[in-house]
């Protein structure tokens, strides 16, 4: 496995920042972030069910991971966090990782609310929305 696609929720500020974190970190496997409902994701994975409100990771070979497993695969792709991916996948910590990610997913709207505010962030969001338009996610 030499590439993973991370399908994330582009209108969630926290998710976008997490995606940025994934882009910035040194990697052992290349990571491509795709807005979950975008055209690129639909074109690349025509048979993938994208209705579930969950983080989804798809490998270059088509293996699909969702929820906490997707989060663990994201960590596994990062050079400095592979050890953590290994630890979190063990039976003792895996339920904790699952609960933490479910809780994060449920409250991501609230968390994003805390992060919005400054003009700089507004500019970033507008730039991001252009990216989303290119990906077919603009309002008509």
């Amino acid at each position: 496995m030499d590439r993973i696609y991370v399908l994330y929720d582009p209108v969630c500020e926290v998710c976008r920042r997490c995606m940025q974190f994934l882009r910035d970190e040194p990697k052992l496997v290349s990571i491509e972030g795709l807005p979950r409902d975008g055209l690129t994701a639909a074109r690349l994975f025509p048979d993938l069910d994208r209705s579930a409100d969950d983080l989804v990771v798809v490998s270059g070979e088509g293996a699909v991971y969702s929820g906490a497993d997707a989060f663990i695969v994201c960590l596994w792709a990062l050079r400095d966090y592979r050890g953590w991916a290994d630890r979190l996948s063990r039976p003792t910590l895996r339920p904790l990782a699952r609960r933490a990610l479910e809780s994060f997913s449920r409250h991501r709207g609230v968390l994003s609310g805390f992060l919005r505010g400054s003009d700089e962030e507004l500019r970033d969001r507008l730039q991001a929305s252009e990216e989303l338009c290119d990906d077919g996610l603009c309002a008509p």
Partner: protein
Amino acid sequence: MAKPVTYFVYLIISIALTAWVARTLHRSGRPFLVEAFAGNQEIADSVNSLLVVGFYLVNIGYVALAMKTGASLTDLAQCVELLASKIGRVLLVLGGMHFFNLYVFARIRRSTQLTTAPPPVRPASFTKVSA
């Protein structure tokens, strides 16, 4: 006269023990390190030698520092008792260092294995990827 002889015997036994453990470590640790460095024998040999040098320095340093005694030695029994307690400490330090080295080997090996490991979780399903 008893004290210098005891010191001399202590040094001989301690250094011989250190050399024996270091040689064992050097010989038996090599395959472990070769695997840890993904078959790169040059790096494995280099790390192996460096670890053994560190092992010698720490142990002979301890042996030298722990040599001096304030006890007055009047008969053979006292000499043997002193030797036993000093060499016992040296053996414990050697054992501790040996396990520490094993721990270092295991860590190096694990981190190399992680770099080439597949994802630690199984995929939920498979989907078609269009190029």
